[in-house]
């Protein structure tokens, strides 16, 4: 099968690209640690350590070697899953991160679900009813959603639904009632973006000749909207959702901080407070790797979904 071969070639090419990007990210995050003021050896030892002890520790940590050698030994650890040790927790960074990853994954997945649930219907309706009052309302909603800070929205949610009404717990981690507020406040920006993109996509597709032709065949407009137009308009949305996962993960840092959610975001803020730079750097690397892999997945799904996609 020729098509399969081309598809395989595309996926391999995309994989190669992913590896290249990951290497770049690793160099950047390695460089970030090198920017840290003061010697990491000094950070590891107690304050009253002598210069000699620091020198000794530096040699032990390989900090006297050339940068390239240091990077290579760092990378050889990374590919084996060794991200170094946290200065504060005195345990492997990888262990700390992977303990917290499920909570962040849970939060972002629920938030993504909420964003799609709000964004898709609003986008479809606004696109189909373009130029009407419904469309205008939806656009204002979209702009509002993009303009409100996740911080403010989160705090307002706590004020109303937890403090005033007492319906939901203000913070913490547990059953489904705990995830509703953080996920919704994280989802708003994405919901607004999806609805705006889908709206313009729908409106564009509905002006195409083949849609007019479908009308001429006597197919109902509901069927046209949902079956023909949506299928084409949703494709760019998939790509954008993939690209926005990064913004999402970044937003999660703030959201987790507000709601006391025990994920990567809270770990990051703690690590910064403790000046635990190796941990911060490992988080940067892991989060970026997740993001790159999500986009690889999105690209592959896209290729499988869109028959027009050429594999170059």
């Amino acid at each position, binding site marked *: 099968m020729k098509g399969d071969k081309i598809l395989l070639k595309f996926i391999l090419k995309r994989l190669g690209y992913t590896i290249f990007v990951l290497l770049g990210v690793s160099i950047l995050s390695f460089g970030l640690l090198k920017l840290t003021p003061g010697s990491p050896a000094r950070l590891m030892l107690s304050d009253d350590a002598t210069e000699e002890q620091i020198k000794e520790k530096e040699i032990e940590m390989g900090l006297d070697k050339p940068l390239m050698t240091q990077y290579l030994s760092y990378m050889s650890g990374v590919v084996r899953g060794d991200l170094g040790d946290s200065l504060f927790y005195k345990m492997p960074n990888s262990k700390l991160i992977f303990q917290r990853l499920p909570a962040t994954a849970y939060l972002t997945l629920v938030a993504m679900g909420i964003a799609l649930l709000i964004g898709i219907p609003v986008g479809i309706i606004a696109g189909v009813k373009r130029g009407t009052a419904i469309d205008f309302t939806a656009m204002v909603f979209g702009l509002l959603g993009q303009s*409100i800070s996740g911080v403010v929205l989160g*705090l307002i949610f706590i004020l109303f639904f937890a*403090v005033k009404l007492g319906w939901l717990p203000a913070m913490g981690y547990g059953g489904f009632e705990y995830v509703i507020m953080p996920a919704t406040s994280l989802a708003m920006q994405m919901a607004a973006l999806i609805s705006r993109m889908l709206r313009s996509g729908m409106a564009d597709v509905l002006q195409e000749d083949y849609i007019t032709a479908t009308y001429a065949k006597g197919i109902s407009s509901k069927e046209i909207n949902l079956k023909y137009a949506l299928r084409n308009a949703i494709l760019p949305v998939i790509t954008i959702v993939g690209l926005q996962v990064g*913004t999402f993960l*970044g937003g999660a840092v703030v959201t987790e901080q507000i709601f006391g959610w025990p994920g990567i975001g809270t770990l990051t803020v703690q690590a910064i407070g403790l000046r635990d730079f190796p941990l911060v750097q490992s988080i940067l690397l892991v989060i970026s790797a997740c993001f790159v892999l999500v986009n690889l997945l999105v690209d592959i799904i896209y290729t499988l979904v869109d028959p027009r996609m050429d594999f170059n």
Partner: protein
Amino acid sequence: MSRQELFRRMRKSNFFVIGAILVFLIIVISLLSPWIAPHNPTTSNLLLRLQAPDGFSKGWSGHILGTDPLGQDILSRLMVGSRVSLRISFTVVFATAMIGTVLGIVSGFFGGVADTVIMRFSDIQVSIPPMILAVAVMAVLGNNTTNLIIVLIFSRWVQYARVVRSNVMGIRNMEYIHASEVLGSSKARIMFTQILPNVLTQLIIVMSQEFGRTILTESSLSFLGLGVPAPAPSWGVMIADGREYLATAPWVIIAPGAALMIAVLAFNFLGDGVRDVLDPKNKN
């Protein structure tokens, strides 16, 4: 597009009109804030801490939006704080646009190695979630306004470079560019006198969308304590400071939260308006 046509479209776009008026008001208030703010934004008076908003019942001399945990007047802090947000977002947007445009033009015009290097670097750059990168870099460099501006520039240039590059590639092989080459114009001259004016529209569209986003990112970083350093009356810092008083004195965070939203909304309205006005596809 003629000047008349431009003005006609501006008037016709609701988003543009509302956004432009709001942005203009915000800039005026922000510029005049040291003179028109009702109180000194950094004078604290612990006897007057956490006073509920007076509204206009006591006129301009009352605490119209209440006071914060240090007894400072919130409205005055908001007005002066807007200077911080606006200064950062204008600096970042213009600097990023400049850097991104130069890289985008070089990339699109020369192609080859320059293009590959710039674009591959941009691929790596966009693979790191901007907020995470900003948090990590601010943590390492230390939080002051200069570092914040550098981080924000560094995390957004790709946006511009890519838009400009694809536009440049579209006109790179046009006849007037070749004609200019034949006439002996230097490459730099062609890039900045022939190509730049042609990508300006797209550039302005991207820039107009970025102001609001930059203000939001800045306030989030300041909220985390990784942006504008604390004593400055920045909106993000005000929200962070008010957090413990959410239940007892909600105005302490609602006021800066609302200010932030109005400012970002104003810039986003303007951004959408600018796109409506300038985007040639948008004729209907």
